């Protein structure tokens, strides 16, 4: 039982949430959960304040959220008390956080990951809010914001596409053409390697193993189509399916072109190697832009959609994770929280946010796109042209399954990409543990 004391130690930020997380060590969960629930009502329900739990701890999103909330305060006279927690910590402790005394409104992600908490009764439906804000969103966005019971649980703020990013100047200097098909893509990678570049920037070390999912999702989507991918993610088909092994076979074809030493590198360092012209391409999200410190460089960045593998599916799907907000199950200031959510679901809030963080694309149809940079414009077009939109590997699936089974498996395999079937068997053996309950 020494474990309990150890769980706390790596956490440096002694916030309330991490303390809760620590308390919920090994067996203490049984004790603490009901206790925390009991004090869920909270003592002070200040009608003039709404609490807001944010995972935007980095400088850019932090200032962007601050701009949004201060505008809301000016607008409504309600104070917003923001409680910011490091992104990864926020995600890891979300379950205990929501069972404890969560903030009224909190940042979260669309997709299965949102539906899971809605299904567990840890979030409150938002149908009233959507009566007000609904007209500003496309059907796709509406679909994305609903739980499995058909009620709204989510207010989207922005999304960002995943694609293959490159530097225009590198392509121009060397005479490369953005590839459209798989064979063009592998040929280009081969050429880059010959030219002394790392063809595909890669960094999934430390806590960044999630970043390899982008490649996996696209390979699977392009080779086997949207429907198969979603069934796989939701645990409805076997991982040992012939089609999944084909995805791994394709991936193996690409693996010699990955940047070396990827298992120990952060995604930021991988992105930096692209910016430094050491790597030729990167399969990554638009958030790559957060790595840019020299604004002049932004104009030199471009992307192309992940290449076509099977003509039957073409490039019909775009991976565009959507971030937004949810309402906790027992908000202390329900009316104020609803007003905040209505504000967050407005074009004005999105404009304010995007003004501070230009590496995302607004979801609201009336949002101001005039000030978009070229990357944002192209991103918006890419997303708008997609037939299907996926969220991301760990948002379309059970996050526990992805983080404890799929990711370690794929990361290990990618280090020595040989026998894919052994890996798939391993993953398959764990599937029922996560999806039958």
């Amino acid at each position, binding site marked *: 039982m020494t474990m309990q004391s150890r769980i706390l130690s790596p956490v440096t930020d002694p916030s309330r949430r991490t303390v809760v997380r620590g308390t919920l060590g090994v067996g203490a969960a*049984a004790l603490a959960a009901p206790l925390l629930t009991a004090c869920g009502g909270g003592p002070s329900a200040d009608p003039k304040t709404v609490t807001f739990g944010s995972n935007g701890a980095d400088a850019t999103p932090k200032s962007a959220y601050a701009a949004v909330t201060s505008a809301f305060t000016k607008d409504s006279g309600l104070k917003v008390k923001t409680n910011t927690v490091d992104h990864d910590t926020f995600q890891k402790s979300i379950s205990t956080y929501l069972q404890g005394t969560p903030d009224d409104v909190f940042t979260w992600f669309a997709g299965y990951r949102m539906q899971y908490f809605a299904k567990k009764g840890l979030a409150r439906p938002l149908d009233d809010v959507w009566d007000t804000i609904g007209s500003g969103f496309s059907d796709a966005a509406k679909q994305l914001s609903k739980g499995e019971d058909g009620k709204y649980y989510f207010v989207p703020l922005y999304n960002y596409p995943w694609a293959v990013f490159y530097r225009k100047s590198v392509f121009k200097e060397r005479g490369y053409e953005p590839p459209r098909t798989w064979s063009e893509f592998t040929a280009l990678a081969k050429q880059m390697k010959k030219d002394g570049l790392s063809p595909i920037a890669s960094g999934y070390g430390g806590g960044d193993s999630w970043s390899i999912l982008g490649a996996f999702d696209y390979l699977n989507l392009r080779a086997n189509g949207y429907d198969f991918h979603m069934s796989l993610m939701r645990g409805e088909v076997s991982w040992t399916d012939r089609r999944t092994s084909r995805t791994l076979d394709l991936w193996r074809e690409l693996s010699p072109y990955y940047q070396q030493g990827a298992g120990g590198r952060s995604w930021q360092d991988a992105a930096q190697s692209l910016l430094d012209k050491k790597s030729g391409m990167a399969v990554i999200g638009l958030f790559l832009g957060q790595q840019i410190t020299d604004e002049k460089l932004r104009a030199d960045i471009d992307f192309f959609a992940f290449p076509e593998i099977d003509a039957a599916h073409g490039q019909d799907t775009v991976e565009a994770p959507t971030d937004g907000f949810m309402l906790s199950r027992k908000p202390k200031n329900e009316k104020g929280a609803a007003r905040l959510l209505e504000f967050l679901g407005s074009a004005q809030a999105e404009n304010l946010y995007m003004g501070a963080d230009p590496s995302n694309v607004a979801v609201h149809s009336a949002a101001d796109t005039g000030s978009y940079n070229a990357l944002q414009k192209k991103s918006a077009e890419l997303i708008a042209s997609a037939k299907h939109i996926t969220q991301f590997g760990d948002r379309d699936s059970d*996050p526990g399954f992805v983080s404890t089974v799929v990711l*370690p*498996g794929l990361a*290990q395999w990618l280090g020595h990409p040989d026998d894919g079937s052994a890996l798939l068997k391993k993953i398959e053996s764990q599937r029922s543990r996560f999806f039958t309950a």
Partner: protein
Amino acid sequence: MSSVRSAPPAAPPRAPAPARPDAPRARPRPLRLGRGDRLFLTVIVGVPLLALLVFVWLPALASVGLSFTSWDGIEPSDIRWVGLDNYQEIFTNYPPFWPAVQHNVIWLLFTALLPTPFGIFLAYQLDRKIRFTRFYQTAIFLPMVLSLAVVGFIWEIIYNPDNGLLNGVLNGAAPGHHIDWLGDPDLNLWAVLIASAWRHTGYIMILYLAGLKGFDPALKEAASLDGANGRQTFLRVVFPALKPVNIIILVVTVMESLRAFDIVYVLGGGVGSKPGMELLSLLITDNIIGESSHIGYGSALAVVLLIVSLLAIGTFLAQTFRKEDQ
């Protein structure tokens, strides 16, 4: 407390309030406690006892109970009894389990065979009043003072594949070598073990140094008069005489190995178990902390670790005390 009051009068009189000269007694009687004393004892024993029960034993027992259930940690009404299913799954169908057990064993052997003896060696050398001994002591003990997060950051910088110290040095010696210390599953456990040893050595050194400071120099003198050389003096005289310290060091080493967690967690990026670095403690947190938690499954893993720990410590204590009794 009851044991305090009902101690049999026949028990060896371990200084039960030395009989006062003005009221001599035929034989020492058990001490009668006044009301204030009793209250004091109740509080001073009762509060920690209660804390121990509530914060250690109750959760431990709850863990054992939960290990036979399946639960997502949200609604207590969802707790479902599954009997031994979790254990069966863990032992037969949980890919990271056996690697984790193996890594825990490697951890124990490595720590016991390398940094621990090395720490003792350093302590012995530093005790010989060499020049700058304070400086060396401080330098070697320094890692122990740092928070583990900081230790993690330091080694992250050393192991970084692109601009890390280690690859930089290697590149100078043999260009073109590019070793992925923390990313390669065949390598990363050893990389982490080195980082852990860096810290552990100082810890052992200071413990042993404390023991050596209390060591009677006359014994050493006698040994040298008998013609023992340095090695013989240490192995035949000093080491056996420092048995209490040796026991502490052994317990510390075993405990540190079994509960190894933090440095792996930090160097693994703070996301739970990584390929090549699975440990039982990490598998437990993998299953319990996170967006979809499997409290029952994780508890079963925790119980496995608890049993292993109890076996290790229990065997050791039994051995030690049996010898002591003889």
